[in-house]
């Protein structure tokens, strides 16, 4: 066994990124993700990379846009208000087909809200916080190990599909520590050369142009369908999902990220209490594991969706399940003192198991 590290989630995502060859980070401080810029500021200079604290999140995402256009792996991170400010830049990156990794360690909102764990940015991440109907790849780790692993995956998927990838964590996953077993970076696939990137034209016949403006008749529509195909490919090939005990389940609990961690304990409690409860934990939120839900609910008709918000992923669950399924929701929108406990979720399981 490799030596285990004992680190915060916020650090794990950096360790993974650096292992995956990311040498550029642009960001702006915001709680509860400050350990990310802080870690990068310590490590990147020694690796010949660049850590730059931007003047704002708006500037940061546009520096990321520039660095990505220049052909390198680059990352930014933020939370709540900062992610909102990146919306325009993200839309431009999606439109310009620029890969990058954006980490959102969710805090609670709306507005200034609070710095505690929340999952209220699900819609923003998955349905597109910015304008113009693009998608991000959205990955939702539920452990420090997975933050590390998915950090690498995020870079690979982003490069492969030329779609920006978001790691959607929350204050719980970002701030907690647990063991991490590092392993060497192994790209998911052979990745395409970035021959579209700007480097100075050099001996190329044509200058490279990275842009999202399409003026010719039909050009923008064609571009959008091309992006749409890309999203379809992601749906076809890149879904990731963890399931526990769904084969004999009478009730399926579904949750992602931090909520899934709490849910896992609740599910164990239920199993110990003799309830046949299973778990579906989407790891990719976009692409959403639609098939898993549909198939599972062909047998097990009842699903309880648990989120740290007032109900967001539950819509994607409802859109995915078999027509006969009965999807219920339990959520807490977060804030100081408002994290649900395993006991509380166990109670919910008991309740929804019965009626």
């Amino acid at each position, binding site marked *: 066994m490799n030596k*285990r590290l*004992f680190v915060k989630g916020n650090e794990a995502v950096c360790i993974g990124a650096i292992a995956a060859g990311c040498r550029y980070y642009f960001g702006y401080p915001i709680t509860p993700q400050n350990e990310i810029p802080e870690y990068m500021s310590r490590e990147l200079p020694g690796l010949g990379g660049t850590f730059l604290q931007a003047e704002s999140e708006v500037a940061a995402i546009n520096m990321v846009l520039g660095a990505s256009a220049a052909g390198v792996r680059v990352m930014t991170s933020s939370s709540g208000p900062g992610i909102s400010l990146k919306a325009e830049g993200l839309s431009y990156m999606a439109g310009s087909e620029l890969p990058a990794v954006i980490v959102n360690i969710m805090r609670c909102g709306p507005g200034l809200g*609070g*710095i*505690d764990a929340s999952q209220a940015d699900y819609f923003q991440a998955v349905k597109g916080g910015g304008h113009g109907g693009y998608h991000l790849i959205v990955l939702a780790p539920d452990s420090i190990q997975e933050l590390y692993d998915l950090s690498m995956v995020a870079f690979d998927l982003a490069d492969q599909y030329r779609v920006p990838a978001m790691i959607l964590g929350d204050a*719980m996953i970002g*701030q*907690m*520590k*647990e*063991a991490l077993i590092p392993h060497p970076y192994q790209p998911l696939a052979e990745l395409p050369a970035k021959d579209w990137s700007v480097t100075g034209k050099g001996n190329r016949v044509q200058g490279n142009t990275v842009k999202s403006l399409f003026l010719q008749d039909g050009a923008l529509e064609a571009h959008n369908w091309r992006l749409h195909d890309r999203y379809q490919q992601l749906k076809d090939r890149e879904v990731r999902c963890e399931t526990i005990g769904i084969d004999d389940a009478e009730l399926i609990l579904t949750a992602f990220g931090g909520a899934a*961690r*709490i*849910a*896992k*304990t*609740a*599910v*164990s*409690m239920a*199993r*110990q209490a003799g309830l046949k409860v299973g778990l579906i934990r989407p790891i990719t939120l976009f692409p959403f594991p639609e098939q898993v839900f549909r198939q599972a609910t062909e047998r097990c008709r009842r699903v309880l969706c648990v989120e740290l918000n007032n109900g967001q992923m539950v819509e994607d669950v409802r859109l995915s399940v078999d027509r006969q399924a009965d999807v219920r929701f339990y959520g807490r929108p977060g804030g*100081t003192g408002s*994290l649900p*406990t*395993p*006991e*509380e979720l166990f109670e919910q399981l008991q309740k929804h198991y019965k009626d």
Partner: protein
Amino acid sequence: MDNNKMNEDVFMAGFGGQGILLVGNLLAYAAIEAGKNASFFPAYGPEKRGGAAMCSVIVADQEIGSPVVGRPSNVLLLNQDAMAKYYPRVRPGGLCLYNSSLIDASGHQRSDICSLAIPANQIATEVGNVKLANMVMLGALLARNPLVQLESVKQALDIIIPERNKRFIPANLQALDRGFSFATA
């Protein structure tokens, strides 16, 4: 969940500056070094100073689910506010150690848990620094519930403490020991 396997949770609370996060982290780290699984989950008030501080530690053989628990089995309470808020939440059958130097427990009585008064500030002051009350409490906990060996914690301390503070290690070890023996006695 396999009942033969270990799965222990510890919750600690006090005010910022009492070193709650430090001992929580230390305990979890010691468990990791000892080959167990462990999670450490901190929570702060909004203020950097003076506000409340708390954390949850889980130590287990198997994979850890929730890093937080609603009703913790092992609880360390370091000031009066923490006592008021968290004493009622100790799991029935659980263990609660409180810092009797700062806590007046008279209004708090439960017969369904094991409550133990530790004059942590006093013992720490005897060791030489009131700030070691956190170590006293941890030592006491380990005497009552050996989630990890005291020895492992001591080794972890050596790794965790940054070079420039190494000189404080002996006092910390002493505080751990004093807490341990106080609770063993």
